[in-house]
């Protein structure tokens, strides 16, 4: 098989502006998500992810404008998440030019949104974002639960069971973030990534904790992820997309090299 493993940079967008601008290139406007998208497109990123963290629902229109302008300027696939509550929100993003839309809290509250969205847009367009945290005591069997609100609110829902349930309902991909590792640069939670990847037949994107290029490799070889997502190592220019791809290819992972 020749399907390549994907590297996905993720940009946090608030009120239409990038929260942490990328600084690996001289951009005219580091706060403009479209400028960042163009830079990642040119750098060979396999997909791009926008996470809209706009707090108020009234300003949701700003992300639509970002997606529209990105689609007009970049011939690369884009996933958009954050604040998606209804099937109508999915439709608006798809029409603006998103290829996939990721649903997080709304699916935790009411899983039926996954099936309703997949019926309209096809499973391939619907990503369910899972924020999971380890809840077993040391020495006990591994167990992870779904958390919402940036890892603050426990839901009591088992992460593996939830992943299987949303896959059955029609999700086409799972974006899996370890809330224990997010922002730590300590690497993915590989046990979690592997447990979820092996529990479902849809692709799993590993996220949360990337600090080195070896972490990206491990996410695929040990975590069995289909794609790896990272933010700061790329945004701050610690590593380029090309370096990451070359490193992963050297480790024997099939990559799309420029």
């Amino acid at each position, binding site marked *: *098989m020749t*399907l390549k*493993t994907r590297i996905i940079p993720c940009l946090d967008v608030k009120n239409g502006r990038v929260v942490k601008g990328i600084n690996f290139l001289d951009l005219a406007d580091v706060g403009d998500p479209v400028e960042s998208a163009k830079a990642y497109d040119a750098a060979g990123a*396999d997909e791009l992810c926008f996470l809209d963290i706009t707090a108020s629902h009234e300003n949701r229109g700003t992300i639509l404008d970002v997606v*529209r302008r990105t689609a007009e300027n970049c011939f690369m*696939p884009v996933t958009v998440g954050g604040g998606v509550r209804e099937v109508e929100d999915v439709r608006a993003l798809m029409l603006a*030019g998103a*290829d996939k839309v990721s649903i997080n809290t709304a699916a935790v509250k009411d899983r039926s949104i996954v099936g309703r969205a997949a019926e309209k847009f*096809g499973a391939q367009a619907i990503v369910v974002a899972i924020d999971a945290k380890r809840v077993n005591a040391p020495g006990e069997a591994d167990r992870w639960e779904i958390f919402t609100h940036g890892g603050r609110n426990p839901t009591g829902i088992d992460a593996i069971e939830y992943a299987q349930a949303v896959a059955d309902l029609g999700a*086409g991909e799972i974006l899996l973030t370890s809330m224990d590792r997010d922002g730590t640069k300590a690497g993915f939670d590989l046990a979690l990534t592997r447990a979820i990847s092996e529990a479902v037949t849809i692709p799993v994107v590993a996220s949360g904790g990337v600090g080195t290029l070896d972490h990206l490799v491990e996410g695929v070889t040990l975590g069995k992820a289909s794609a790896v997502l990272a933010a700061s190592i790329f945004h701050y220019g610690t590593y380029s997309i090309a370096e990451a791809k070359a490193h992963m290819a050297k480790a024997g992972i099939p990559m799309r090299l420029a």
Partner: protein
Amino acid sequence: MKIALIDYGAGNLHSAGKALERAMIEAGVSGHIVLGANPDDIAEADRIVLPGDGAYRDCRENLSLVDGLEEVLTEQVRVKGRPFLGICVGMQLLSDIGEERGETQGLGWIPGRVVALDPKARYLKVPHMGWNTLERRGEHPVLDGLTFGEGGLHAYFLHSYHLLPTYAADLLATADYGGPVSAIVGRDTVIGTQFHPEKSQALGIKLLANFVKWSP
């Protein structure tokens, strides 16, 4: 040249339109794109592109809902022989029957069925999602200058179903994903790509430029 890009509420029009504009420049063809589903516009078009993101059944229903759309498409493509490109579900709709969420009748311009992907190896995930290379299966002007095989250019796929043509001659290119996956089909003045040329960078623009230049 006037290219009609059909808007029937099935998404992805912005990038398809921009990619076609870029392709026209590369092909050295002057022209413009008309976006919409107005039968009068489509009747005047030299070329027609049908994108499609979504489920087969839903896209098919949307197509039928636009008054006069199917009639003008049939007239333009089947009677007048205008070049036509279907993308993703827009390609799948060319088939006789789609099996996604129950059987739905397609346009029947490329005989065949749209069936669920069923890769041989159990560890392969469905949807087939990401960048894959192509294998050439036939000769066609839209394939000019594309590169194939392990060292070839990549195309971006995002799908759980694919079109199995009744006639092998209609299959122009495949991707390998636990078995062959239909990537490009063509018959008469109609072609279709399962992958997204508008998301497939160099390969996509090249294919679109070929489509713009193609005179069947």
